[in-house]
């Protein structure tokens, strides 16, 4: 076919003169997909569906492909400062460290308290148990928790 003097069919002439409508609207692809299409010669259904349906985007992306990106232009200094302030400030380093240290200290204290409480409760229960006292010879006078293991010559069992 000669590009200079195309032979138009009836259908082609009608489409050129009257236009047409697509039956559905495409979904908007991501900026990353659009940038990839501009950068690399590859087909992307999502991007090309958008371009086929949206003249503004089609012209923008083809312009970026065919021509260089716009050269840089000067901007007011106060605009740059405003944009720089858009980033929220992260918490102070000391505050972050202090927070973690406080949490660690609290865990340690809870662990110690729990162990101590458990030890005290066990000792109190053993003192209140007459069977334990009778069996192991435990009494309030004993300050060594392991003394029941000491062989007593006075014990009846020692003579067996």
């Amino acid at each position, binding site marked *: 076919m000669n590009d200079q003097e195309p032979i138009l069919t009836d259908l082609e002439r009608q*489409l050129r003169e009257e236009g047409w409508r*697509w039956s559905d609207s495409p979904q908007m692809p991501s900026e990353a997909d*659009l940038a990839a299409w501009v950068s690399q010669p590859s087909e992307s259904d999502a991007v090309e569906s958008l371009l086929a349906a949206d003249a503004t985007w*089609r012209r923008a992306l083809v312009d970026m492909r*065919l021509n260089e990106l716009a050269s840089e232009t000067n901007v007011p200094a106060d*605009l740059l400062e405003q944009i720089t302030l858009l980033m929220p400030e992260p918490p102070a380093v000391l505050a972050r460290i202090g927070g973690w240290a406080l949490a660690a200290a609290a865990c340690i204290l809870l662990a110690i308290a729990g162990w101590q409480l458990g030890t005290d409760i066990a000792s109190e229960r053993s003192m209140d148990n007459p069977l334990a006292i009778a069996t192991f010879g435990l009494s309030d006078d004993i300050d060594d928790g392991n003394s029941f293991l000491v062989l007593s010559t006075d014990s009846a069992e020692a003579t067996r």
Partner: protein
Amino acid sequence: MHGHVWCMGTPYQPVAGIQRTATYEDPLVDLDFDACIRGDAAAWQAFCDQTIRLVAASIRRVCPTGRTPAGEEIDDLVQAVYIKILRNDRRLLRNYDPNRSSVSTWITLIARSVAIDALRRKTLDLRPIDEAHGAVQGESYGASIGPVIPIHLLTARQRLILTMLFEDGMEIAEVATALDVNPQTIRSSKHKAMERLRSHFKEYGVGDAPPSDSVEPRDRT
């Protein structure tokens, strides 16, 4: 020319007043995206300092008069670009893939996206609110009187080629250059697409709507 198109200038021709570089090399290769994602102020300041001029130029290319139909100025749109970059826990920064595009192309796309949305805000205000998420509402300045073509009838590439040839009036060689393919590939795709359309319209008749739930007016600008 319709409302927003006057800002674009003539398609595929340089916009008057915009300086061009002979060759473009991406100078934005040392930006620390990870630090910006973490919220490092110094990294963000460097990011802004190195990209802001390109962002402003990209927006000005879409709006050479410096103002949108809705009255927004370039500075407002530049700020909107960086707000968009930081939105949703810096989603755009996190999703940037250096293997797919350069930083310059990526941020130019974001800038143009913001500018295009701003250009359309004037006309969208006159329309009912569209609750559809993600669907593209191409601008319509009067519905086309032509036939309805089912979107599934042609591939995305075929649809794009026909649009560029018939609606934009581009030559085969121009389309081939734009799509970075051989001109013969364009001719072949056009031929196949037209054959499919002829078969379809032979069955349904030109101008008759095919069995479809939705018909959207297309962007004819």
